[in-house]
Structure formats: structure tokens, C-alpha cells
């Protein structure tokens, strides 16, 4: 009887000892794993960071996903232009429809009335009371097989080596055939208007130049880009300086991803190589380089 009791006691001790070791080992292991996974520069040395948000998952060793993407852009810029392929992903679950990107784009590119590169389409789905709102920002899709390029009678629009569809403002005759060809309505025409038309004075800030396609385009009567087709350029003038497109930078919800589709490690490829990715109007066969996450 006594022996039995002793044995039991011993067994318990053994058990506690082994589980204790396991638990301690487990703790050490998890600490090791998290330490190796979590970015070092983020916190003070020796302090273990915890995963707190999706942002942390996305940012890698950077302070934010945006800084990570910016660094990725800068690294891609070191490659020859033909090795780059810029792409964008928009997480429509995160888009709150604030139009900050629309407005930031207008400010960045000094867009006049009627010219908008990135409207946010708001679509109500379901029927009352079971309704929800989908916000769908719509930049230029920078298609791999763009319908707007072959229709141009003078070849003023073309696919750049890095995949961005460029419009040569000095060459475009303003026939607007490309506007009809784009299945996304991404191209607009510059009618030469100003927001401060019909006020005592057209404000100087409306005539300041835009910097599209690496050139200065001051707004002057009759001069390009007035009378031209215009569209989103992925802010290629910012990219050239290692900055993200303005819409990506400005998005308060971090709903935009941008990077080099040729770089498997870039965040953009991490988010689009999943099953929740979709593209607009797949049936058109245009192969957009703008992806939507849902």
C-alpha cells in the first residue's frame, strides 16, 4: 500500500519534471521562433516584439508596409528598366471609400476639372436591409495587352519597358479613340478647364506644372496636356525618384500595395499570389497589372 503510494508520488514528480522541461523548452523555442521571425530593427535590442497587426506581418523588417514597398521600389530601380514590371494591388476589404487617393492624385498631377485618374467607384450590393457597400478604386490597369495602344492613329501611346502605358503628350492629336477603346474608362480628355474658371482670377496653383513622364507640363492655353488624352501613370515621375505612387502613400487604410511583379520577394507578389485575388473584366483579355484583393 505504502509502496504504491510512493510509486505514485514518484510518477507524479517525474511527470511534473518532464512536462516542466517540455514547457520550458517550448517557451524557449517559441521565443527563438518569434525572435527569428520578427524584425530586429523595430524594437530596442533584447526586447521581443509580438505580432500585433496584419501590418506587422506585411512590413517584414520595416516599420511599415509602405516603407517596405518603398525600399523594394528603390531596389528595383537599380535594375535595368526592362527587368522591372510595376504592379499594384488594392485590398477592397480595407478601402473605406474616403477618396483620399482620388484627391491626392489630383493634387500630385495638377489635374483640372473633369480629369480624374483614380475615381473610387462605390457599389451597393444586396437589397435592403441586407446591404453592403463595395468601394472600388479604379486607376489605369496598365494592361499587358492594352486595347488603347493599338488604336492610336499616330502611335502616341505605348507600353514602356517597365510595363507602364505612357502617352506622349507632344504627339497625341486628341482624337479620343483610345478613350473609347479602354474597357475600364480609365482615360479622360483634358478640355483645358480650371476649377477657378468664372471667378475673378484663375488661381496660380492651377497653372503649376505637372511632372508626368519626367517632364514639366505647365498649364498654358492650347499647350499639352490640354487637348490630350490623359490617364494614371502609376506616378512614374515619383517612381523614378524612388517614391511610391501618391495614392499608395496617401491611403489611410493601407489598402494599396505596389511593387515589382518580377520580384517574387516583393510584398506585391506576396499579396497577389493568393486565391482572393481578382482582376477587373477578365473577359476582355487585357491582363491588367492592377489586382484586387477581396
Amino acid at each position, binding site marked *: 500500500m505504502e509502496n504504491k503510494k510512493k510509486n505514485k508520488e514518484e510518477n507524479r514528480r517525474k511527470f511534473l519534471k518532464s512536462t516542466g522541461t517540455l514547457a520550458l523548452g517550448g517557451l524557449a523555442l517559441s521565443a527563438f521562433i518569434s525572435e527569428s521571425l520578427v524584425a530586429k530593427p523595430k524594437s530596442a535590442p533584447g526586447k521581443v516584439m509580438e505580432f500585433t497587426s496584419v501590418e506587422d506581418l506585411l512590413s517584414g523588417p520595416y516599420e511599415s508596409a509602405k516603407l517596405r514597398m518603398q525600399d523594394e521600389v528603390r531596389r528595383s530601380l537599380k535594375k535595368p528598366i526592362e527587368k522591372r514590371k510595376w504592379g499594384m494591388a488594392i485590398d477592397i476589404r480595407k478601402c473605406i471609400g474616403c477618396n483620399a487617393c482620388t484627391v491626392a492624385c489630383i493634387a500630385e498631377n495638377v489635374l483640372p476639372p473633369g480629369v480624374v485618374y483614380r475615381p473610387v467607384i462605390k457599389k451597393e450590393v444586396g437589397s435592403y436591409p441586407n446591404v453592403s457597400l463595395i468601394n472600388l478604386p479604379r486607376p489605369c490597369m496598365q494592361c499587358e495587352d492594352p486595347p488603347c495602344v493599338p488604336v492610336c492613329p499616330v502611335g502616341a501611346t505605348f507600353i514602356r519597358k517597365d510595363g507602364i502605358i505612357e502617352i506622349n503628350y507632344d504627339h497625341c492629336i486628341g482624337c479620343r479613340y483610345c478613350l*473609347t477603346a479602354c*474597357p475600364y474608362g480609365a*482615360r*479622360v480628355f483634358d478640355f483645358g*478647364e480650371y476649377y477657378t474658371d468664372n471667378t475673378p482670377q484663375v488661381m496660380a496653383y492651377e497653372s503649376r506644372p505637372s511632372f508626368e513622364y519626367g517632364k514639366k507640363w505647365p498649364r498654358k492655353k492650347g499647350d499639352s496636356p490640354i487637348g490630350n488624352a490623359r490617364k494614371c501613370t502609376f506616378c512614374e515621375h515619383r517612381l523614378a525618384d524612388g517614391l511610391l505612387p501618391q495614392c499608395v502613400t496617401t491611403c489611410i487604410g493601407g489598402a494599396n500595395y505596389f511593387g515589382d511583379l518580377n520580384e517574387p520577394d516583393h510584398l506585391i507578389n506576396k499579396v497577389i499570389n493568393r486565391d482572393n485575388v481578382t482582376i477587373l473584366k477578365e473577359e476582355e483579355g487585357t491582363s491588367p497589372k492592377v489586382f484586387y484583393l477581396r
Partner: protein
Amino acid sequence: MKKVFYVLWAVAFLFGAFGVYQKLAYGDLFVNFGSRVVWGLWVAMYIYFIGLSAGAFLLSSLVYVFKMKIFEKLGKLALITALITLICALLSIWFDLGHQWRFFEVFTTPNLPSSMMAWMIWLYTAYFLLLLGETLLAFRIDSGKLTGAKLVRKQRTLQILASVGIPLAIAFHGGVGALFGVVASNPIWHSALTPIYFLVGAILSGCALLTMIFVFLWKDKTSEDYRQISFLLGRIVLVTLLFDLLLEWSELSISMWLGSSTHTLGFKEMLYGHYWYVFWIIHILLGVIVPVVIFLVKSRKPYWVGLASLLVVFTFLGVRLNIVIPGLVTPKIAGMASAFFSKRLLYSYTPSSQEWLVGLFIVALGIALFYIGDKYLKLTNPHN
């Protein structure tokens, strides 16, 4: 009567010139088309006039290629009409450009072979040159200065030119239709019927224009020829009109019978939308039913034939508008219409006063050119 005409013409020309001045001085500030309905009245006028030109030209081939004696007197009239309407068409599309002074780039840096617009421009340039050459030759032959072997040689050249002109006219106006047809993102343009529909429409409107001019402006209205020609022309217009209607029925019925809503929105807009009356009243009633009845009942009465043709010609601008506008008033992505507000991003269109004025200028110019041509070249009063 003449005085009233002169005054009306002068008023139209002056007002029109004001519209032209506005366009040249202020660009596109006063137009009502935008970035959604990207093409408006001027593009519709372009395809209207260029159709008239192709149609008139193809009718002239009855004289210069097929040597139909009965229409001989109409040959030069048809050529000059084709030339003037072509000039009107080119002016219409030139005014439509955002950068009018860069038009030469379509010749210096054409995007061939991929751009249907570039093809069309090169084809109508070739057509323009051929038409010019053929017209000059036709007048030279009829001047009576050529005799013997030289005359025969020139007549032979004229026939060859006119023969080359037939496939060229078909190619270039088919090309205008193809320009619309190849736009895959626009379901109501993207049809294999589009170029054919353009061609038949061209023959219809061009023949109707010549019939109208012949009936009303021909000096010798008492001859048997006059009655005979107007009867035959009326018959040509009637047959083409019915064929055109068949094509239209085919296009609309096949698209709409069980068609998905996104593919038929444009047609629905045309039939039941804001401008339903352009289709039902202007086109179907005044452009089809009334002329067909007249052609059937009064086919031997030249004035009635002329009136029916006039109805076809005038209402055909509505047909052309109904190709351009309904194809553009439907959002390509649901919700686009309310995504961003601007008058340039509306999915509706009514031509502005400036657009009408420029249109008026082009018509007035065409009439003036015809008047001058008729006066000096005796188009409606050939001496032979």
C-alpha cells in the same frame, strides 16, 4: 426666293464662322462632349458626310465603270458631290481633334498596321487623290478639247481610275465602319455587321442626296430623261433603304432577343432612352416609313421622289448620331457614373450651341462650294 436663300445662307455662314472662331481660339471649352460621351455631333457629321461621299462616288461608277448611258449626265454631278461632301467630312473631323494643328502626324507617323483609324485616314487620302484625279479627267474629257486617239486613251484612263475607285471606296468607308467595329469594349459597335451597315448606309444616303439634288436642281425638268432618271434613282434609293432596314433589324434583333443587359444597354438607350424620338420619329417614321410609302405610291412623280430622298438624306444624320452616341452613354463599369462628379464625366450628351454652329458652318460651306461648282461647271445644266 433667291434673295431669301442668300440671306439665310449668309446668316448660317456668319453664325457658323463664329462657332469656328470659338473652336480655334478657345479649343474645346465650349463643347458638350466629354470623357465619357467622347464623340459627339462632329464625329456623327463626319461619318454622315463621308458616307454621302462614298455613296455619291459609287453612283458615279455606274457612269464611268459600267457605262450606263441613262445616268451619263449625272457623272460629273456625282463626282463633284462626292468631292464636296468629302471636304465637309474632313472638316468635321478636323474640328473634332484636340490638337488640330497636329493632324499631319497621321501621315508622318501612322500607327500601321494596328490602328484602324490610321488605315481609314490613309485610305480616304488615297480616295481623295483618286477622286480629284478622276474629276479633273472627267471634265477634261467633256471639255471637247481632246480628239481621236488621245480622247480614247483618256477615256480608258478614266475608266481604270473609276474602277480602282470602287474597291477603294468600299475599303475606306468599310474602314470607317471597322473603326467602330473593332472596339471590343463597346458591345453595340463590336459587330461584324458594322462595316457592312456603314457601307449600305453610305450608298443609301449618297444616292438619296444625288436624287434630291437631281430632282430639285436639274435645269431641264421637262425631258423624258428627267422623269426616267428620277424614277430609276428613286428605285435605287428604295431598294437600298429596305436592305439597310434589314441589316438594322438583324443587328438589333440578334443583340436584343435574349441578349444580356450589359450588351444591350446602348440599344435600349437608343430605343427607349432620352433620345427615343431620334430613332422612332426621325429615323423610322420620317426616314423610313414615309419615304417608302412615297417611293411605292408616287414613284413616277419626280417631285415626290425628290421629297422622299430629301427625307432620307436629312434624317440620316439621326442614324449616324444613333451609331455614335448610344454606344457611349452606358458606363463601362457599373457605378462609374456616380464615382466622380464633373460635367465632363456625364453619361449624357446634347450638342452645345458651338457644336451646332460649327456644323452649320460646314453645311453652309458645302452648299457654297456646290453653288459655285454648279455655276461654273454647269453640273445641273450640262450643255451636251
